[in-house]
């Protein structure tokens, strides 16, 4: 059957199981959108292409399926860039389709022409410029395959306008043929056996779980291994929710703003089993002092991650779930009562530093997050933004279900949460979806409130409004003489703004109002936004100074409620 290029795109997306795309029309995708109405795919019209890319990313993270975003040439395509870089850093399977000027016009600086394959070269797993309609179906097949297999990532397909119109015989390839792309899924037997032996011998082992566990859907196997070998579990930011945080073996998050006892446990461990994480500087602090007493087992599907930042004793290249499955089978049932008791002691000590252990009527942001956690019983799908709000979410929302936190970890993209939540809600319509964002980040993609209304997406939005770009303000307070340069910001009236978009708007200024407002938002049948006017100059504690060892954490001073000089604590 002969089809034009535009029809080939949609027919191929249908073959790949795509039912929804996120995108904006434009001069060089008119033909593509013209054909859309002939196929069973719904396009969510975002209000900015960045929103489309984040929404596709959010959909992909929430479902494990490939998220698709669409933009026109030139500015439409460049607007995708931040979203693609975000997906690339966090290994999220996204396929981006962009229109391009017609092939005879390429290279002539035509209207709305830009070299988007050149621009996205270092922020995509692979990309294509399809100059012949006969190559189109194969490129789409390959793009989906590359995006979702191995270590997932974004792939961009740039399709000139004349290729969208040109016709060819349509055959969707059954298979892909790559001489140079064969991800290793199965861990090497000998390496897995060696790793399991180290686990059996360890006296103070720790499991460090990263995003790879969630991507591989290896949560059940992680739980089995942790319980069978009696090993406490810490996670990275993106590893959060791969292990229930109310489980006795859960120590929460490590790193710059991790739980102090989680960091202490890693620093004191004699074995760390690292699964699907890449030793980001935010997790390790100063790399030379990270886990100094530990042997290191590193399991990752990307061979280039092994040995990139940290010396490894036993590397295992493979899919986290596959490797964990084997390790569960081989590991001996063990108990580590002394080790767990030592960690419990550290944990008890940390409680005294916790803001929530203090008597106060002030509306602390930590209290808001904990209230959302309690009112949703730790079961909501949370999409957090970037900055202080992200860290408070990570510290105070107790995730009980797998894959319930989506956040921009690697790139740290402010403005991610709102559009990503749209993709997440569409991917998992039965889950309660909450955005937790600051008043800075929410304004970076605030236009998507219109999309939420148009698509009738039941998303709840919590703004921790402190009138600052808070994380940078905190750094200024600690490291830059308290000079708040470029950080104070005034927002709009978020309640009126929500109402203008047809969304329920609530404001909370008192602690006592928080829980009732959260309940009201939950009971409201549509989207709702709550403007929490939180304590303005509250800081995220504990904190490891950039470049310091994670043994050295700045802790909240115990006696004073507001900040004095932070305490130094040596683990």
């Amino acid at each position, binding site marked *: 059957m002969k089809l034009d290029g535009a029809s080939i795109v949609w027919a191929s997306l249908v073959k790949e199981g795509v039912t929804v795309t996120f995108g904006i029309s434009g001069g060089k995708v008119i033909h593509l959108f013209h054909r859309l109405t002939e196929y069973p795919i719904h396009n969510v019209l975002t209000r900015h292409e960045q929103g489309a890319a984040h929404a596709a990313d959010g959909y992909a993270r929430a479902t494990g399926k490939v998220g698709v975003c669409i933009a026109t040439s030139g500015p439409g395509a460049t607007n995708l860039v931040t979203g693609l870089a975000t997906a690339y850093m966090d290994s999220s399977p996204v396929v981006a389709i962009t229109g391009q000027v017609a092939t005879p016009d390429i290279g002539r600086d035509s209207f709305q022409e830009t070299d988007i*394959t*050149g621009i996205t*070269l*270092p922020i995509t*797993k*692979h990309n294509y*410029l399809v100059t012949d309609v006969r190559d189109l179906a194969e490129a789409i097949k390959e793009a989906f395959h*590359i995006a979702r297999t191995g270590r997932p990532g974004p792939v961009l397909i740039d399709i000139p306008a004349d290729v969208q119109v040109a016709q060819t015989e349509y055959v969707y390839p059954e298979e892909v043929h*790559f*001489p*140079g*792309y*064969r*991800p*290793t899924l199965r861990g090497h037997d000998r390496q897995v056996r060696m790793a399991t032996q180290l686990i059996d011998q360890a006296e103070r082992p720790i499991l460090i779980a990263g995003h790879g566990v969630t991507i591989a859907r290896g949560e059940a196997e992680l739980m089995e291994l942790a319980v069978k070998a009696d090993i406490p579990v810490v996670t990275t930011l993106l590893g959060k929710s791969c292990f229930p945080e109310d489980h006795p073996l859960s120590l929460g998050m490590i790193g710059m703003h991790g739980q102090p006892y989680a960091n202490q446990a890693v620093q004191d461990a004699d074995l760390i089993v690292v699964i699907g994480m890449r030793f980001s500087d935010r997790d390790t602090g100063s790399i030379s002092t990270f886990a100094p007493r530990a042997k290191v087992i590193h399991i990752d599907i*990307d*061979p*280039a991650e*092994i*040995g*990139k930042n940290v010396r490894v004793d036993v590397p295992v290249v493979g899919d986290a779930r596959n490797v964990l499955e084997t390790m569960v089978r081989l590991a001996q049932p063990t108990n580590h009562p002394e080790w767990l008791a030592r960690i419990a002691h550290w944990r008890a000590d940390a409680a005294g530093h916790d803001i929530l252990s203090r008597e106060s009527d002030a509306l602390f942001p930590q209290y808001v997050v904990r209230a959302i956690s309690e009112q949703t019983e730790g079961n909501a799908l949370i999409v957090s933004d970037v900055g202080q709000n992200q860290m408070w979410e990570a510290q105070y929302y107790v995730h009980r279900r797998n894959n319930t936190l989506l956040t921009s970890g690697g790139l740290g993209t402010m403005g991610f949460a709102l559009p990503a939540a749209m993709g997440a809600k569409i991917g998992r319509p039965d889950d309660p979806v909450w955005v937790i964002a600051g008043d800075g980040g929410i304004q970076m993609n605030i236009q998507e409130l219109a999309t939420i209304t148009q698509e009738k997406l039941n998303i709840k939005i919590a703004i921790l409004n402190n009138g600052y770009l808070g994380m940078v303000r905190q750094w200024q307070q600690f490291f830059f003489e308290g000079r708040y340069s470029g950080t104070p910001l005034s927002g709009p009236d978020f309640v009126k703004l929500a109402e203008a978009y047809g969304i329920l708007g609530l404001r909370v200024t008192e602690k006592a109002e928080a829980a009732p407002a959260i309940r009201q938002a939950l009971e409201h049948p549509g989207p709702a936004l709550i403007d929490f006017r939180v304590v303005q100059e509250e800081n995220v504690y504990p904190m490891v100074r950039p470049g310091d060892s994670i043994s050295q954490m700045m802790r909240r001073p115990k006696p004073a409620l507001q900040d004095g000089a932070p305490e130094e604590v040596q683990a």
Partner: protein
Amino acid sequence: MRHTLVTLVEDKPGVLTRVAGLFRRRNFNIESLTVGHSETPEISRMTIVVNCDDAVLEQVIKQLYKLVNVTKITDVTDEQTVIRELALIKVQANASTRAEIIQFAEVFEAKIVDLTRESVTIEITGTEDKVDALCRLLRPFGIKEMVRTGRVAMLRGVSGNGAEKG
């Protein structure tokens, strides 16, 4: 230390940009890169010389393998190899210096490929050291123009295989 990587890539548009871009993005120090056809149609062969320690070399190889179009990389640094570079060197010459220049070229088994009243153009093939040595000898005469291809390398003997991908 200098390492020589023989890298086979699919002959697709943009593949050279992908390789070059990777070196820039990851801050790897590339010394030379040559590219041309291989014995297999649609497969190009790159000879990449990088200056780095062993840990970085491991990253170079692994990151290169992540490029979808890269099919095979062989580190031939410590192998028995034939290593060659070709250079064209245009040297200023006059009646009094021409004979000496030609004599130097002959010692190096280099060819005279062009001759004018004011210049001699020499083609030399050999290891980089050999090319360097001839350059040093010719520099005092005045090198007007020079082009060097960068290193190409091939394993000696029948087998040409290195590490398989993955």
